[in-house]
């Protein structure tokens, strides 16, 4: 009888231990917020996207972002059409991607509540073109959830997005981007 119990509990323990450690490694977000604005003297064009998807691995500091381009909703309907048709070519390049790692990973404590400064380095792909970037952000841990925020600048030239001379005054060369997301433990 005793041996049987020992066998049973140790088996349960092993199985549980394995699955839980696996789950706590990874955090996922499917409804992250991206906002961008192109500021010029003539017109400000901005858009929101609530479909940013990301997975964060707290074990090795790897992180990935995927942003569906059609998810950007503009206040100016015509700007949305031009964004998709002429600039980002969303039919050809449906999403932007970032794949990278935390540089200061050893200094980040994912178990401690509060804000922490993070730096990320990796490859950003927009409009079919990939560029190495290094950006800073803030991570805040609140009751097991990880909140992440960052502000970055995207130069259109870096990703092969050309602005025709006729509208050169209406679209900024450098776009301000804000991202804001909330990770939840990834269980599968």
């Amino acid at each position: 009888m005793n041996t049987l119990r020992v066998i049973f509990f140790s088996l349960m323990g092993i199985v549980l231990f394995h699955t839980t450690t696996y789950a706590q490694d990874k955090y996922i977000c499917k409804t992250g917020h991206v906002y961008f604005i192109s500021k010029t003297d003539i017109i400000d064009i901005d858009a929101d996207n609530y479909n940013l998807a990301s997975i964060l691995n707290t074990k090795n500091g790897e992180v990935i972002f995927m942003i569906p381009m059609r998810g950007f909703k503009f206040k100016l309907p015509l700007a949305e059409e031009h964004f998709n048709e002429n600039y980002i070519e969303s039919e050809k390049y449906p999403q932007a991607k970032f794949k990278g790692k935390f540089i200061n990973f050893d200094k980040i404590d994912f178990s401690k509540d509060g804000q922490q400064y993070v730096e990320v380095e990796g490859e950003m792909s927009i409009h079919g073109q990939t560029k190495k970037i290094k950006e800073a952000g803030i991570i805040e841990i609140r009751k097991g959830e990880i909140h992440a925020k960052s502000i970055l600048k995207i130069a259109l030239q870096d990703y092969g997005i050309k602005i025709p001379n006729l509208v050169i005054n209406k679209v900024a060369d450098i776009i301000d981007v804000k991202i804001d997301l909330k990770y939840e433990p990834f269980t599968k």
Partner: protein
Amino acid sequence: MKIKKTYYFFRSANRILFVRLIFPIVILFFLLITTPAFSQEEDLESLLEKEIEIKPELTIATFKSTRLINSHTIERMQKGDLDFRISHRFGEVNTGVYELFGLDYSSSYLAAEYGITDWLMTGIGRGTMQKTFHGFYKLSIIRQSSGKKSVPVSVSWMQGVSLNSLKWTNPERSNYFYSRLSYIHQLLIARKFNQKFSLQIMPVLVHRNLVHNKSDKNDLYALGTGGRYKLTNRLAVTAEFFYVHGLNNTSGINYYHPISIGMDIETGSHVFQLMITNSSGILENHFIGETTGDIFDGGFRIGFNISRVFTLKKTK
């Protein structure tokens, strides 16, 4: 008694066999099926790709404008957008140097068109040909979309009415107001095959309350087709042709099937459409029923449309 039976196995010599042999094997098995999770770790990308579902997206920008050349397209003004349109047709090229190959002549149409919702637009305008006032609405019935439940085509329905405001040529005759009216009913079916190529089929019925001659038909049925091919992101070539059933050529004036080729140039909120066409009419009841240019005899003309879109209401 039953319990005893169940544990009988463990009391026997087999118990040692179980603890020493089968138990480690079972544990090893569990370890094996749970550990692969660790080795998968580096591939976050495919993990995330599995998690995100691809949302169905409505196809946008099948055409650059609400007009292909003369004809409507399936496109509509989006909610809160006002389109101010100037359409202009010069004279026939075969008029020679004296008329500067048609540039001395002009037929024009001015219009203001507005998107009430994302699927309904309306417009009013005034054309010089027969001093026509025109009003129409266009309804987006089906929109092409990609994704799980994809829809292959976009379908729009357009209805318009034109009012000929010329003075009566025959004032002594009893003239009725409704004799001035023509009605247009048009179904527009289009598919955007890829980023560059879109094709449209547009059957149309034009009803004219009053026609020039007894032998002219009041109802004209026509089947049109047209398309565009994008050369660059802002430049496209377009073409359209209508086969008109029931054109009457017995009354001295020859009418032809309207055919046009054009070019779309988009510059931000403007769309310029340059074209060569054999009809001077810009409205359906004019170009379907009263196209007089014989393309084989130099009976075509140069023209342009300018569309300027103003966003009156920003979407939230």
